[in-house]
């Protein structure tokens, strides 16, 4: 999470509190209630609940956090603390694709640091961030446990082993090309 987005979310959250958003909540309540019920409303299962919300929406929408806090009777700050402490939670929508590069020790020793830099440079993205065109969300993570075939990159769940700067950029460029083709087909 970048400080910026974190701050914006806080501002958003306080606005929401004032407005007492009611429109969205009607639809959300159903899904949220299901999620809360899944864990018998146990406060201890807050993290799994938030994980479920994120897998539903791809991120943690502020109004959902607000409703969840209400449902569980917890202060919103507690949810915000959890959301910002753990690196897998996102407070902003993610891109169309997920690109995860391992920068664990072995991948790093075998050059993933440089690959990460190249991806950031080429696609104007930061680790943990999403490209300006929302093509992909880039994550540089500490070890995906496939060290024997390092360096490893995972694109939408597919593993690429022994990647180099060139091959990594090529795979990601492929995502952009795919999207162009889809868009063109749509125009036709």
């Amino acid at each position: 999470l970048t400080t910026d987005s974190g701050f914006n979310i806080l501002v958003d959250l306080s606005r929401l509190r004032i407005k007492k958003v009611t429109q969205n909540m009607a639809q959300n309540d159903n899904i949220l209630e299901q999620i809360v019920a899944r864990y018998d409303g146990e406060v201890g299962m807050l993290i799994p609940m938030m994980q479920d919300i994120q897998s539903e929406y791809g991120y943690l929408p502020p109004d959902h956090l607000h409703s969840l806090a209400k449902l569980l009777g917890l202060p919103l700050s507690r949810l915000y603390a959890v959301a910002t402490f753990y690196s897998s939670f996102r407070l902003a929508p993610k891109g169309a694709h997920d690109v995860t590069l391992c920068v664990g020790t072995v991948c790093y020793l075998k050059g993933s640091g440089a690959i990460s830099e190249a991806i950031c440079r080429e696609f104007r993205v930061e680790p943990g961030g999403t490209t300006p065109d929302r093509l992909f969300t880039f994550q540089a993570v500490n070890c995906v446990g496939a060290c024997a075939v390092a360096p490893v990159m995972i694109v939408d769940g597919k593993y690429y082993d022994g990647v180099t700067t060139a091959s990594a950029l090529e795979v990601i460029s492929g995502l952009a090309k795919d999207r162009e083709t889809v868009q063109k087909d749509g125009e036709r």
Partner: protein
Amino acid sequence: MTVLRNKRLNSIADLDDMRKELLSLRRPSAKYVNVCTGPGCAAKGSPKLYELFCEAAQQADVDVEILPKAVGCHGLCEYGPIVLIQPGDIFYQRVEEPDVAEIFRETVLGGRLVERLLYENPDTGRKVETADKIPFYKVQKRIALAYNGLIDPTKITDYIAMGGYSALAKVLSSMTDEEVISEVETAGLRGRGGGGFPTARKWRSCKEAKGSPRYVICNGDEGDPGAFMDRAIMEGNPHSVIEGMLIGAYAIGSSDGYIYVRNEYPLSVERLKMAIEQAKELGLLGENILGSSFSFDIRINRGAGAFVCGESTALMASLQGRTGEPRAKYIHTVESGLWEKPTNLNNVETWANIPAIINEGGKSFASIGTEKSKGTKVFSLVGKVVNTGLVEVPMGITLRQIINEIGGGIAGGKRFKAVQTGGPSGGCIPEEHLDARVDFDELIKLGSMMGSGGMIVMDEDTCMVNVAKYFTNFLKEESCGKCTPCREGLSQMLYILDRITDGEGQAGDVERLEELAELLEGTALCALGKTAANPTMSTIRYFRDEYDAHIKDKRCPAKECRGLFHYEIDPEACKACGICMKNCPVDAITGEKNVPHVIDQKKCTLCGTCWEKCPFAAVLKV
């Protein structure tokens, strides 16, 4: 095997009957194709191979039963994807999609070998047929990984047929809680998560602690970069972990268990979930297990991406839906852990060892290893060795044996520099100590530690200051920020290390690092902080000359730190092809056809593109 579905086992006799029935269903003529789908092989596309074998088996119009199986890690990941054919234990390596048809036709149906896919012993140049003849496997001893690679982790029936849950049956039918604990005590089992605390002592303290309920936790938050042992066990043989937890819970007197799995391991979660469901269906988890009065259930929680949650008190905070901040352990978690109740937490590998200890007896386990470190230890052997992979070795084996005999030495003909054990809390061990034995206490004496089992081998091209910087940066990022020494101390250490690798090190920097390290060790709140300086301290201890070269001579001996070496073109090796000239982003290279090229050092930004692109290795780091 469908007949066995949904049948609840109400007694130990039921379990035995089920095992007998399973074995009787196996036709002796059946052929098995075990496709490794462990982390390494899966990354190389082995799940697709498994599908192809399944298709081939379905289409084959033959009388014999052919059973493809997707199994857990075989260990020799470097040569993956690996396929094992039974009978015959034929070991095929680096199998690709087009090879499937040939293996099926020749070996499975025809009983002939596909020579080209066999492993070639690099020393003798001879092809070998079976795994036990491969040097990589010869010195290994498998207990925790015993069934990895043999059973289908998605089928509880496979585990039961191999004798699974018999340790649980033994405990329920003939052992008291105290007897279980003393068996583990006899085994001398120590925590495999890295600390090495005697498991039996932990169990006993938890059992004797006041309060109820008691909780049992499996720590699957394998966060050390460079380590994937627990992942391989959770994905390759999840039932061994569940059985271990059941036995532990019985001994401690607990009926609630948790498995906390790292967020980056979605497949581990899936496999464990499936295993728990299957165990519940058979009544091996839940109320009145195997008709006894013992009840136990397990819940899985996924981590959310915080390294510090591998620390027991932080993990428990996370299980309570809080930020993963550790607390000082004036009161141990066995007395006041999860929800302030007595809680026993062990690592995945520790749990996976329990069924074998109960089945074979503590004495048999204790017969392996050194005086104070018993049994085996699983390591992920990675980095610059020839055979990267997952290995399980008896304690007491030397580091040299692991690296040379199992690992096959250093890749690419380079020279060994150091081996890093213990993850970010561990240290780097140099060549002169390679004959040290793998033993909890011995590794600590060397300034490193056993850790959870990451073993990263580094060669002459690795800058040790940079390694220290890497780990310090890792820990700085992962520090929870609760206590000042860790939060601020690591930032300062990183600041100094950064300055050294940038060529701006100052006299006295090493001493400053040492001072900060001492502060961290003495005052940080949790193990993450207390051991955070180990990577820096061990590299200072063994590679002080590299620090001095960076600070005094502004030179990086491994030629890794940008700015502390430069690029030159070797006129002898240069073929004047012009590739470097074309690729140089700042036009710093001049030259013509048939005239060796030259780098203008004033213009050069040290980006390294020419070095990467030169097809003749004529660009040198100087």
